[in-house]
Structure formats: structure tokens, C-alpha cells
């Protein structure tokens, strides 16, 4: 094969405009792009950090950063106002999952004080193809979700804590995410206001 000219023909090979073909798979594939990208990220983190705990922490941190942007997206799309109470918050979080991940987790196991509840996932696009290898049993694959929730709630002046109770990747029946209300954050006082 001759490699005569690396100079390009100026002539266009194709005009792409008229071959457009959208199919119904498009959005599913888009979702796969996200799923796979997340998978690649987790794999990269496992390579970069020796300690699985550090990977979990890093995922949470990245989730937090995504959360503070996602909340704006959520508010702009839904036009929703402030939450009346924590139950309202729970429903809004549920809506958020519906919008962004296309899943509707069930809200269960309210604590008596009404400051703690669980979200149960039957399925989760994040883990769609994932099978955890044996050496990563401490890995919290979906830890990014925890970060997202923490970041998003913090932006609407709410401090929460959340953690995984059950995880399908570890052969539990459902994935259960526990969310606890910690406190209301006060409106920030103007910077430099003395």
C-alpha cells in the first residue's frame, strides 16, 4: 500500500446531511454511554488507588460535584419550590431519580421521627452490566449516588447523611439507600457583611 500523500483530498467524500437515521434505540444507547463511562471511571479509580476505601471516597466526592450541578438542572426542569417537610424531600428525590436515571425507587422504612427513610431500587442503570470481581467486595460501586444526594441537598440548605444498607451487586435482593436528615443550613450571610 503506497503512502504517497498524507495530504488530503480537498474533495469531500460525503455529505452527511441526508443520511440521518434516528432510531428508538438512540436513548438507550445514550444511557449505555453513561453506564459504560461510569464503569470505566470506577475501573480507573481502582487502578489509581490501592485502597478500595479511597475509591469509595473519591466516587463520593465526584458525586458531590455532580450533585451541585444536577440540583440546578432539577430545579429548572421541575420548577419546584422549597420542600415543606422531609417527606416532601423524599418525593422530590424520587422524582429526581425518575428524571435522571429513569427509575422510580420506592420510599420505605420511615423512622418514627420522620427524619430517616430508605430508597429501594429494583434496578439501576449504573450497574447494568456490572459483576463485581471477588477482590472488590468492599467497593461501593454506586457511591457516586451518595455524593450526588449530599451535594444536591446541601445546595437547598439541607444537610443529610446517606449510606447503602443493601446492594444488589453483593447479592442482596434490592439495593437499599438510607437517607437521614441532619439539619437545616441557614442562608449564607452575605460575604464580608460585618
Amino acid at each position: 500500500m503506497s503512502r504517497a500523500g498524507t495530504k488530503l483530498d480537498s474533495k469531500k467524500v460525503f455529505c452527511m446531511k441526508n443520511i440521518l437515521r434516528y432510531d428508538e434505540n438512540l436513548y438507550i444507547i445514550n444511557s449505555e454511554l453513561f453506564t459504560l463511562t461510569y464503569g470505566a471511571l470506577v475501573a480507573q479509580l481502582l487502578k489509581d488507588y490501592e485502597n478500595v476505601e479511597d475509591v469509595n471516597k473519591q466516587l463520593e466526592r465526584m458525586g458531590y460535584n455532580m450533585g451541585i450541578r444536577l440540583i440546578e438542572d432539577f430545579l429548572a426542569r421541575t420548577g419546584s419550590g422549597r420542600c415543606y417537610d422531609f417527606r416532601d424531600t423524599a418525593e422530590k428525590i424520587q422524582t429526581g431519580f425518575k428524571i435522571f436515571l429513569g427509575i422510580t425507587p420506592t420510599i420505605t422504612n420511615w423512622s418514627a421521627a420522620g427524619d430517616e427513610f430508605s430508597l429501594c431500587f429494583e434496578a439501576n442503570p449504573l450497574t447494568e452490566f456490572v459483576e463485581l470481581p471477588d477482590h472488590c467486595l468492599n467497593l461501593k460501586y454506586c457511591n457516586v449516588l451518595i455524593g450526588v444526594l449530599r451535594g444536591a441537598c446541601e445546595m437547598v440548605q439541607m444537610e443529610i447523611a446517606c449510606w447503602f444498607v443493601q446492594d444488589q451487586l453483593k447479592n442482596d435482593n434490592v439495593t437499599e439507600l438510607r437517607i437521614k436528615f441532619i439539619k437545616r443550613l441557614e442562608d449564607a450571610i452575605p460575604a464580608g457583611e460585618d
Partner: protein
Amino acid sequence: MLNRVKLRRSLAGPAKVRINEINREALIIEGTPLNKLGITRSYGKAFLGLGRLYLSLDSTLAVKKQMAHSTTQSPIEKATLYVLSSEAKLMYGMLFSIKSFVSKISPLDPKEGFLYYKTSKYTLHYLETPSGLKFVLNTDNVTQNARELLQQLYREVYLEYVVKNPLCQLNEPIQSELFKLKVDELFKKSPLFLSRSI
């Protein structure tokens, strides 16, 4: 809360709003004129301070989470965003005070907070998202219902070109040129602007 706003130095510029003017016709909070709410004179006074304070700022401000557009004279030419730290702080203080004032005099938890106030010279429209972003738009008194426009600004411009721009940090002043451009576009195609320029 009101004493949070301090005039640290006298600002140059006209202070044309008088206390009786405010009491008579200005300051509408959530559609209710102040005097109907039984607001006392002292509150009015406080607002005079605020009004004057704000009137002297004829430019647009953006600090931290704040954006303001001055459309008092020629709507778009002035819609530039920049940081003026001392003025911005004062502005923030004023909005903060009005907000807490409104929530205090409201019998129920106000859903939307304060929407706009009006003086004899200009109207200030205000939109605050639950995440604490504040959008401020100054218009003349003819313009009504700028709220939808502010929401559009949030939804179609801020979200798209700031939140979704990975190079924009949310806790820094917005520097994106594209954002500026889109703000400009949005306002130019807005019916509020078109109806004024005909």
C-alpha cells in the same frame, strides 16, 4: 434583620425617592401594597435607605450567586455582568434584608418569597431559586411580569451555559462569553424588550 444593611460610605448619585413616595405608591410585595399590610413608618424608613442605596447603583452586578441586569436606560447595552465588590455586597445586603422582612411579615411560609418592588423610578424584579441563586432585573415601571423572563434566564441560559459548561465553576463569577451572548439574545427576543423598542 434590617440593620444588617449599613451604608458604609455615602454613595454618589441621585437619591430621589422620598419616604412619602414610597409609602404612597411604591413597594409592592407579592401584589399587596405595603400600607395594606399595616407596615409602619419605621419600616418605610428602612426601605427608603434601601431604595436610595439601590438607586445609586445604576450598573449591573454579579457576585457569587447574584446576577443583576440594569435595564433602566437602554435595556441591553447595560446588561453586562461584572463584579463590583463593595456595591455587590450592599446589593446583597439589601436583597437579603427584603427577603427576611417579607418572610417575617408573611403569615404563612411564603412560597415564592418576594417577587418585585416598585419605586417611582424603576421596578426591581427578583427571582430566587431554592438553591439560593438570585436573579435580579431592573426595569422601568411599565414592564410587568418579568418573572417568566427570569425563569427563562435560569432555565435556558444559566442552566445550559453555566451549569453545563464544565469550565465554569459554580462558585466563581461567571466569565463565559457565550453566557453573555446568550443572555443578550434572550433579552433581545423577549416580548418585554420588543414591545419597548417599537
